[in-house]
């Protein structure tokens, strides 16, 4: 063994351990990061933003929660989850059904059922949602269960790449079409609208709407914490290995289907939570918010922000949603084209998203320091 030379490789300042490159850094850096985010979300935003803007931000933060899950499943796991609308919708409808039932009062039918007038009793599958505990659990667990069953079918059969993306889109379309077709029991195209109360709090009261914002912000931080732990754990490393060499991982004794399944199910749970919070934040959930187009829009934000990082997806989602509001107020017709560009540009020119700009800049300064 003496001839096996010790490699003489100078340490390269541009190469950082993978954990840092990926932005799920060491403990102290993370604590600082979470602290800053908490200050921005709980201290700064409520002070500088009026009620209307804060309400908009609550909506954007819901989209950011979906994005954190996509970052995990797509950025780290390589699964192009173009169908998160399904899980967002399941969470949203579970929450909205409960809120519609409490709005209507005990024993009463929700307003839209009375309006369409074909029902005199509540459909059986609505009944459990009268229980707040059941409804709350269902917002997260139902999407996770559906993702588990779908994932078992999809990943065991080694469906991946474009086929996985197309299948995800088809599921979104199917759910949206199903909801539209069941107008009497789901509200059809209109969805579940005019949500008035949130667990006893009147959503018409601006103060309560601020509280909803704080709940959403806390949920985003919690979801970021979960993603952070998953990314820095051994599982997170394994997930990257599966993304980059699914077949290779098999020869190490792992079943990659199970590895992917975990990230897929967690991402679905996050989308479900986001859908559930979207309902009190915006007051409505409808098929238009869970179909093919919104599902693509979830992914655009993640691509713009940088899919493989921890905060990139969330920031990208917020930035794109904000740009959408700002632009479509002024130039409604231009937004669609702009959105298309937003998707294509990062994919072609900046696969790491905006987050990779920061890495590039850091590398350039590191190089300059070495040269100096």
């Amino acid at each position, binding site marked *: *063994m003496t001839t*096996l030379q010790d490699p003489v*490789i100078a340490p390269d300042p541009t190469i950082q351990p993978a954990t840092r490159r990926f932005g799920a850094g060491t403990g102290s850096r993370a604590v600082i990061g979470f602290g800053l985010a908490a200050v921005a979300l709980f201290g700064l935003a409520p002070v500088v933003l009026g009620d209307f803007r804060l309400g908009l931000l609550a909506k954007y933060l819901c989209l950011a929660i979906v994005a954190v899950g996509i970052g995990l499943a797509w950025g780290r796991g390589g699964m192009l989850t173009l169908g998160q609308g399904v899980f967002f919708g399941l969470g949203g409808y579970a929450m909205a059904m409960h809120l519609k039932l409490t709005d209507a009062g005990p024993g009463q039918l929700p307003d839209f059922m009375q309006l369409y007038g074909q029902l005199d009793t509540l459909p059986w599958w609505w009944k459990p949602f009268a229980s707040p505990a059941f409804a709350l659990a269902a917002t997260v667990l139902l999407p996770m269960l559906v993702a588990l069953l779908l994932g078992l079918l999809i990943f065991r059969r080694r469906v991946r790449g474009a086929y996985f993306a197309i299948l995800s889109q088809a599921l979104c379309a199917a759910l949206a079409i199903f909801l539209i077709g069941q107008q009497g029991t789901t509200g059809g195209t209109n969805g579940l609208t005019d949500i008035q109360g949130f667990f006893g709090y009147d959503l018409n009261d601006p103060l309560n709407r601020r509280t909803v914002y704080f709940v959403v912000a806390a949920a985003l931080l919690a979801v970021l914490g979960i993603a952070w732990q998953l990314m820095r754990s*051994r*599982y997170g*490393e394994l997930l990257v*290995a599966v993304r*980059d060499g699914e077949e290779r991982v098999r020869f*190490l*004794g792992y079943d990659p289907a199970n590895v992917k399944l975990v990230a897929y199910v967690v991402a679905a749970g996050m989308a479900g939570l986001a859908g559930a919070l979207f309902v009190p934040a915006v007051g409505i959930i409808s098929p238009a918010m869970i179909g093919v187009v919104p599902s693509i829009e979830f992914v655009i934000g993640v691509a713009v922000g940088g899919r493989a990082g921890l905060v990139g997806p969330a920031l990208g989602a917020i930035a794109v949603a904000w740009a959408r509001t700002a632009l479509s107020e002024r130039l409604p017709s231009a937004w669609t084209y702009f959105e298309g560009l937003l998707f294509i540009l990062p994919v072609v020119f900046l696969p790491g998203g905006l987050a990779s700009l920061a890495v590039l800049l850091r590398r350039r300064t590191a190089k300059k320091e070495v040269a100096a």
Partner: protein
Amino acid sequence: MTGLTVRDLKVVFDGFVAVGGVDLDVPAGDVRFIIGPNGAGKTTLVDAITGLARATGTVTFDGQELLGRKVHRIARLGVGRTFQNSTVFEELTVLQNLDIAAGWHRGPLTLLRRRTSIPPRVQAALETIRLTAVRDQLAGTLPHGQKQWLEIGMLLVQDAKLFLLDEPVAGMSHEERDATGELLGELSRDHTVVVIEHDMDFLRRFARTVTVMHAGRILSEGTVAEVQADPRVQEVYLGHSVEA
């Protein structure tokens, strides 16, 4: 019986017979080289043993039948392999590569936590493959030779008992070849090693036994000297390679 036993192994791709009835015995602790011209079916033979290519016949390792099992199940029985083109996880560090290779038996709680220290077997493998100094480098930045050693290190920590190495020294410098050869010798103390190789000089120096494949079949088998003296082998290699 311990070691690798292959009987009447056949692999057919769309009517093309890539491996046509191979019998092979590699006793435990052997360093067996498999040689043969391009397209002889060497890689396909390894693919069949490791569950990647669909095959008929029987393959047993340490008494366990391998055919019909899934790839990851075969790996768990102690069969490890490398690939002609190195397939380390380039976006992960050397240490992360090894840690993953050492981990299929880990439970959910271990997986969901962070690695806080270097597992002893990973540390030992780092030293065996002489990559301790670069353990925090991304595997993608390693030169070719070190990538191949990393692959061998991954088999070590994976606890493979049978190493199937597909052209491990292709593209290596002379020094790297020598070092790899010595590494193989060291491995063979407690592993069974099968090496697919073209390089005759490397073969002469480090093989214990040799199997020659040609057109999906075993042409000859024996010690290096026996195989080199076999006229059928000389014919397949048109004389020059074996004499080189």
